[in-house]
């Protein structure tokens, strides 16, 4: 039957090759780093790979960096306080979350006088934004908009690698490079000139767990935290994936065995 085996590879091989072609060519990849920006080095995150998980301590440190440094300008509108106690996240307890939320002021209302008012945060509230709207944010930051950070790790190619590199990537510009007014030189930012001044300084944050707060450490921790804010279901997804893949391998094997049995008469 298979007389042309030599000239046409088996269907299975071709399927594999085709998939490999699609995947390898990375149809999804436009030019990654525009201009002279360097590619961020690949970091071996704890959440990488099919069995990756978040490091709770890392997430808690990252949350601390966000809260004490970044939240002054950057909102995080998709995260609610209660998410900090969700499984697969930083792992705060419900009581800690309640106490933590209460330290924030949240806008609520209108009250019976028709006015908006501030009250202490509750677990169900989202993280409050530092500015009431985008225009106010731009006005306070020389026209540049400090992005909402909830999804930033998925909104950039190589998200967490890029964030960690960028935050620690402020250097002196190379000789002859003129940095525009109000901009700062960064090795990894597209075009090398970023409006955000270097946000991290050594020992800026005193980590609750005693880890030394170098710039690289803080950049690393907050990048991991931002990966969680972008993809809070990461651990559940990979766990479910393992069960599903094992099930499917067994199922496909059974179907294949059944097929061979049923087709035995024909071949």
């Amino acid at each position, binding site marked *: 039957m298979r007389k042309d085996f030599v000239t046409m590879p088996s269907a299975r091989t071709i399927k594999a090759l085709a998939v490999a072609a699609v995947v390898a060519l990375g149809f999804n990849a436009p030019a990654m780093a525009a201009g002279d920006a360097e590619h961020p080095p690949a970091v071996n995150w704890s959440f990488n790979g099919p069995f990756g998980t978040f490091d709770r301590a890392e997430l808690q440190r990252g949350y601390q960096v966000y809260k004490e440094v970044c939240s002054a300008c950057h909102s995080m509108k998709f995260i609610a306080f209660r998410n900090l106690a969700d499984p697969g996240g930083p792992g705060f307890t419900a009581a800690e979350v309640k106490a933590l939320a209460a330290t924030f002021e949240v806008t609520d209302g209108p009250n019976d006088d028709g006015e908006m008012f501030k009250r202490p945060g509750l677990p169900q509230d989202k993280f409050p934004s530092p500015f009431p709207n985008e225009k106010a944010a731009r006005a306070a930051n020389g026209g540049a908009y400090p992005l909402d950070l909830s999804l930033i790790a998925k909104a950039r190619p190589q998200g967490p690698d890029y964030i960690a590199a960028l935050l620690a990537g402020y250097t002196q510009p190379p000789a002859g490079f003129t940095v525009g007014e109000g901009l700062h030189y960064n090795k990894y930012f597209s075009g090398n000139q970023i409006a955000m001044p270097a946000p991290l300084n050594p020992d800026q944050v005193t980590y609750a767990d005693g880890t030394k707060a170098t710039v690289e450490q803080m950049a690393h921790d907050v990048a991991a935290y931002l990966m969680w804010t*972008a993809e809070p279901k990461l651990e559940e997804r990979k766990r479910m994936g393992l069960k*599903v893949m094992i099930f499917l391998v067994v199922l496909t094997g059974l179907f294949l065995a059944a097929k061979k049995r049923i087709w035995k008469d024909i071949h």
Partner: protein
Amino acid sequence: MANNNAPTSGFFANPVVKWIEYRLPVFSTLDHMVGTQYPTPKNLNYWWNFGSLAGLCLVVQILTGIVLVMHYTPHTSMAFDSVEHIMRDVNYGWLLRYIHANGASMFFIVVYIHIFRGLYFGSYKSPRELLWFLGVIILLLMMATAFMGYVLPWGQMSFWGATVITNLFSAIPVVGEHVVTWLWGGFAVDNPTLNRFFSLHYLLPFVIVGVVILHVLALHQFGSNNPLGIDVKGPQDTIPFHPYYTIKDAVGVGVFLLLFSFFIFYAPNYLGHPDNYIPANPLVTPAHIVPEWYFLPFYAILRSVPDKLGGVLLMFGAIAILFLLPWLDTSKVRSARFRPIYKQLSWVFLIACIGLGYSGGMPAEGLPLVIGRICTVYYFLHFLVVMPLVGWFEKPTKLPASISEPVLKTQAAE
């Protein structure tokens, strides 16, 4: 299952089944369509699995789509947030969303392979021309559905992809601008556009279901083609669809689900674009606007011509030409297995399509643009020149007398 002519006595003897059958013969109809009473060529290989896989994709997309709509809000101020609500708060929302988004990609992978099978084995040739046309129509409807679906999350690529593609219609002479304004419902892509795309995105899949039914009915007129490309001569060439092809399709489903699950659980955003996690901003254009990967070949064809109208015509022409295929191919032989020249050129065609895909994903300059142009030329050459000429001049190898013949021959040799 005692013999080939009567349905399985066990099932049809059941009193409930008999009661229903007498009033509405669903079971025997199914049996005649996909069951023990549907004779299928006995030599179909795994390339024939992709039709049923495409049907599976359609069902998956519709089911996940319906439940996603329970939580989605089609308004520019809330669309992006509602998708994040699905990802974070809705029970299994993240799973349903990733299934739907990656399911679209899987649908196109499966359909492209299905089409390539048709090209290679001559499934578009008489008497299956109409079957082929219906398939091309399904492809067009899929592309429209996918395009509008991608706009719904209202990310940067949603917005700008919609802007670029709807702007293409301004290339139409005289009425172009009016057509675009009509499509937009305004002076730019905005809320009216989003709302109507939502409505149509929900509608079109059911139109696809209708065309798929016609597609299957057309198929059943003459039955499936087969790898040898020769007609079925009698019952000795066929086997009942059930259980032989039901179980074989099940194997295909298993392999398909493995690949699908790999994307969903381990690389859910690989086939997408990071820029779509940025809310749409009409004032900021992304550095590189790219459509989803399954549109890249057509995007490359569009950009290969400097003239706007030319590019548009060529892009639509790339699909329109598929309708002419049954007449462009002059060969009397269906299957490329017996067409030595055409067989090799089929692979060249595939490489050209991959080349187009590569070019479409890169900025339209330098080497990628050159590759895109070369591949565009070959794409049209393949249909307009290669197929007619090769059909005339090629010397096909000897066809077997029948489907069973090679089997009987080898058995006799034993």
